[in-house]
């Protein structure tokens, strides 16, 4: 077993792109939840955040694609095209890699549906877009289950910190709105 990075170029590139994809998806989901929470009321802020949210999502999709493509060149894992494209068929950790592939497809479908929202209807698109949280969950499960760096302290710290923020914002988003105050003198 050598430790020269040149011997593992594809594998290292796949890991690096996977980590970047995770970071970009997390940032995109966090930003989307923050926008939904309407914490900032300044005019035009939602347009700015929306543009950033879109860019992060697109960059995340590209990173996911690079993650899969570079894995094809890895001579140790050699998953093959079918192993990268068809969920649960890879020899290495088939369940967790399969969940990652499903998450990738879901990210592509939900992310790119933004450009079809006029065709499919804004309301339907908005409902479907709420399922993006599943992409985040699948990516985290995939990272923890199949990621080489899953045991690293820095990655665990990242996952715990961002996971807590995502969970908090998601619960705040899905919690029922408080009932409006009853007018004085009103009887139930």
């Amino acid at each position: 077993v050598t430790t020269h990075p040149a011997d593992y170029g594809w594998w290292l590139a796949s890991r690096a792109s996977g980590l970047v994809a995770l970071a970009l998806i997390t940032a995109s989901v966090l930003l989307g939840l923050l926008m939904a929470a309407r914490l900032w009321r300044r005019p035009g802020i939602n347009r700015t955040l929306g543009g950033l949210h879109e860019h992060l999502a697109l960059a995340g999709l590209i990173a996911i694609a690079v993650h899969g493509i570079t894995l094809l060149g890895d001579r140790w894992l050699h998953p093959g095209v079918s192993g990268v494209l068809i969920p649960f068929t890879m020899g290495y950790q088939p369940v967790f890699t399969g969940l990652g592939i499903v998450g990738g497809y879901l990210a592509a479908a939900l992310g790119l549906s933004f450009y079809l929202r006029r065709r499919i209807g804004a309301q339907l698109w908005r409902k479907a877009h709420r399922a993006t949280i599943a992409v985040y969950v699948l990516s985290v499960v995939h990272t923890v289950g199949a990621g080489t760096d899953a045991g690293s302290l820095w990655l665990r710290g990242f996952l715990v910190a961002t996971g807590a923020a995502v969970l908090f914002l998601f619960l705040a988003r899905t919690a029922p709105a408080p009932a409006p105050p009853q007018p004085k003198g009103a009887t139930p």
Partner: protein
Amino acid sequence: MAVATAAFLLALTLLAWQLRAGRDPAIGMAKATTPAPQRVLVRRIHRKVIVVDPPAATAPATAAPARTTSAPARTAPAPVAVAAPAAPAPVVTRSS
């Protein structure tokens, strides 16, 4: 997009450095978990055997049977074979 590319290059560099330093979670761990040669427990057994020989004069090896030279008579005593006293068993002490 430029930030994402920079993040990718940074992550790639860090992972390569980690691998080069032998601290990669997969490759480094594979080296660390290589089974070490098993320690062979060498047990030395010191065996001390003390054989105490009885003095030659006091212990007749074999007594010749006593026979009478006269004609054999029916009353002649049967040859008496004197059995040599058994040599004392060697004292064996063992220590390990």
